């Protein structure tokens, strides 16, 4: 047999071998950054046109935002000089403290946000071994990773802070040197914050596994974003007095203390801008030297800790489980030959509980609830609807307790409009929880689905388990909501029970529809839980839920309203509404899942 020529050293010209040639750190950092850029471009080139357009739109929006911020900061600075602010604090002191406040905010922002990015870059990206085994200086690898982590945040910090700082410069007629110095200061500050963040990542991952840290970070991120987005709703009744406002502003001004290195960075460029070159250069030089030392120290320490293995050797504080004492006979190892499962060990006499609920159904429900509870990625998805519900409950309770806003017309008319309104409201609040729980019911299995797929579980059981896992928490959520409303705005117990029954049917129907959509859009190959379902299915689920909600309300309540208007027996109207609504909801609960039964069998079959 003839042998092909080996592709290898024989064909490499001697001049192409660069071993022995020395390059600076910058050369390798540039090489690695260029690699990242190539990866980004390659991803962009291969991405769908929709994503490309989206990115273009985002870029234009960012530019627009920068322009707006520049204009807004100008207006803000005008406001700070106005007599209105004079009644709370000294505007000059506030203006003086402005750069320090911005710099401090930027420092904190970089410290916190680069933590997550560095965690990803150092521990989760999976390219560290490849990069460190390549003929590259370790410092270049770490430097690039740090840059990778802080560049996006630096961009955002610049976007939000530069317009204000430049606006301040323009309105205060600072000298030209002020502007580049502000940028340099922010850059070094960002590097220092990134360096500290890198060390923090290593310290944390020494105690907690990196994946767990990422899950917790994701959860905290979602929690914060929901809380921030809903803060206006929560703070509607908070009214600050003038003295409180004054105290707050004065406390804020105190951030500009002369002993803080952050205030040196803030004040340095201003002093230079005002022509006080000596004090400005001194403050700035001191602060920038400190930032450079911190960055370099953090970089070399991180490199050392990683290479020595300190940062990857986990010292989990978890206690070792004490094993039960076993006799000599029990301590012997099990041998393969002992692993015979006798025929009688298979289920022959089903227990009473098994007659109602099969062990496979029970196992599926238990497993899904355990994973929902334990996997923070799942909780991150559910936290938004749950928190929204909690906020609504708090708002309802507060509005109920702070003076009864119900009017006699609502509660004492022919029908208790207040109750029906609250009931419809409760149904509305629960929809997003139902949607999130149900649409991802199958996708949540991910790559583990093979275990279910290869086991003898019937499609009917599988569908029922997924239905119940969404149904039970959703119903409980709705009932708690109704109970809170009942406590705040009491109505007849009979009406409350009526509401409970309606929610059973409503939740069933909603889950039936969304479960079917979840089957159609099931994806098992996701890495990021946010990619579990295709966007189109998520949108479709929202649209269908919004159609389903008013339709079910019409079926349940229209006969009640009709009977009330015609002065007929209200109880009969309620009964007819209940029957009509129940039939409609049960149809939605049963028909869609039945239609997709065959599809369930095909999930994961490619």
């Amino acid at each position, binding site marked *: 047999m003839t042998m092909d020529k080996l592709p290898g050293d024989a064909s490499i010209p001697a001049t192409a071998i660069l071993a022995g040639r020395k390059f600076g750190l910058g050369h390798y950092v540039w090489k690695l950054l260029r690699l990242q850029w190539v990866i980004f471009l390659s991803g962009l080139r291969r991405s769908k046109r929709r994503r490309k357009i989206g990115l273009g739109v985002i870029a234009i929006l960012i530019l627009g935002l920068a322009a707006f911020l520049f204009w807004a900061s100008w207006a803000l600075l005008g406001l700070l000089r106005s007599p209105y602010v004079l009644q709370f604090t000294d505007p000059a002191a506030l203006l003086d403290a402005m750069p320090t406040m911005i710099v401090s905010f930027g420092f904190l922002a970089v410290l916190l946000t680069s933590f997550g990015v560095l965690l990803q870059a150092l521990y989760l990206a999976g390219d560290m071994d490849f990069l460190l085994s390549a003929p590259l200086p370790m410092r270049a690898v770490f430097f690039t990773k740090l840059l990778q982590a802080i560049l996006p945040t630096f961009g955002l910090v610049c976007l939000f802070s530069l317009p204000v700082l430049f606006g301040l410069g323009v309105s205060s007629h600072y000298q030209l040197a002020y502007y580049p110095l502000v940028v340099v200061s922010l850059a070094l500050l960002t590097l220092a914050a990134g360096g500290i963040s890198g060390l923090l990542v290593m310290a944390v991952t020494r105690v907690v596994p990196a*994946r767990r840290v990422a899950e917790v970070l994701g959860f905290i991120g979602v929690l914060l974003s929901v809380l921030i987005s809903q803060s206006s709703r929560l703070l509607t009744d908070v009214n600050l007095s003038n003295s409180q406002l004054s105290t707050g502003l004065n406390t804020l001004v105190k951030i500009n203390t002369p002993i803080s290195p952050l205030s040196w960075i803030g004040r340095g460029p201003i002093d230079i801008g005002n022509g006080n070159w000596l004090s400005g250069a001194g403050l700035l030089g001191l602060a920038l030297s400190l930032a450079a030392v911190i960055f370099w120290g953090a970089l070399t320490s991180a490199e050392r800790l990683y290479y020595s293995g300190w940062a990857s050797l986990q010292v989990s504080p978890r206690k070792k489980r004490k094993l039960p004492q076993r006799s000599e006979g029990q301590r012997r190892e*099990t041998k393969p030959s002992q692993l015979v499962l006798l025929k009688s060990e298979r289920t022959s006499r089903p227990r009473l509980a098994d007659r109602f609920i099969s*062990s496979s159904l029970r196992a599926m429900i238990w497993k899904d609830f*355990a994973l929902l509870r334990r996997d923070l990625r799942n909780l991150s998805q559910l936290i938004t609807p749950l928190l929204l519900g909690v906020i609504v409950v708090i708002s309802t309770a507060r509005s109920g307790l702070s003076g009864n806003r119900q009017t006699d017309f609502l509660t004492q008319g022919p029908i208790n409009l207040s109750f029906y309104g609250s009931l419809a409201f409760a149904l509305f609040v629960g929809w997003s929880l139902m949607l999130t729980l149900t649409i991802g019911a199958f996708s949540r299995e991910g790559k583990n689905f093979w275990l279910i797929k*290869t086991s003898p579980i019937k499609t009917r059981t599988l569908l029922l388990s997924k239905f119940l896992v969404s149904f039970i928490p959703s119903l409980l959520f709705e009932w708690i909501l109704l109970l809170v409303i009942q406590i705040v705005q009491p109505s007849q117990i009979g009406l409350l029970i009526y509401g409970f029954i309606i929610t059973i049917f409503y939740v069933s129907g909603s889950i039936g529809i969304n479960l079917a959509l979840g089957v159609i859009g099931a994806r098992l190959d996701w890495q990021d839980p946010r990619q579990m379902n295709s966007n189109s299915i998520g949108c479709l689920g929202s649209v269908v839920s919004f159609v389903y909600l008013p339709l079910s309300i019409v079926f349940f309540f229209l006969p009640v309203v009709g009977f009330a208007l015609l002065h007929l027996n209200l109880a009969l109207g309620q009964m007819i509404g209940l029957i009509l609504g129940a039939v409609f909801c049960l149809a939605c609960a049963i028909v869609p899942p039945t239609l997709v039964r065959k599809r369930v069998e095909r999930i994961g079959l490619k």
Partner: protein
Amino acid sequence: MQSNAPFQPLIETNHLSKRYGDKLAVNDVSFAVRDGEIFGFLGPNGAGKTTTLKMIVGLLEPTSGTVKVQGYDVQKQPIQAKEVCGYVPDEPNLYAKLSGRELLRFVGDLYDLDRPHITRRIDELLRLFDLVEAGDDLIESYSHGMQQKTSLAAALMHDPKVLVLDEPTVGLDPKSARLIKDILRQLAERGAAVMLSTHILEIAERMCDRIGIINKGQLIAMGTMEDLRELGGGQGKASLEDIFLELTGGTEYAEIAEVLR
């Protein structure tokens, strides 16, 4: 349920094919594995081994052809076929947020085993695979080898009549690899059919009663070691590696390796 008559094929594929778009991953593959037999499934990377195994356990739908497990058509009677089958995938994707013990209990429940026996069986399997200490830890904290062993323990929970394993020894230490070999031999001696794919030809040569070689989706050879030796040129002392390379056209790489020594 059918009776376990001697030499009844427990795995039977008939003209099995799988097409992904234009690519024919498995092309008209037919073979049978009888009770008490360990059947090795060999082939180069991308030859169609995993695709075939996945079709046998019901994870992939064949484009054409049929698969029967203990006489049950996997397409038409999937529940019955899966009841007697155990599967160990090449990548042990297990529920990371369950502990090893919880996972085994879950699998036992899926197969409708009695509760007290599930508990006993879990203890046995954890001891067998040296996982007692880690049994209550979450699977996400397990090493690859431990996950592989948990995956095998899960496949053995219901004492399957048919065991299908995809690269079962990858990532295992020598002790665990030996344990798996012993378990497979024991299962076969008790009348189960074992089908495994492997790249480690030494394992196939030593353990398997019969070997099938698949290349580019086609079953190009099948039989005992003696049968294969005859197919591979009739050299009396040829190793499985020689035969494999001869049949799959990989001998040039062996020559390259010789040159590099």
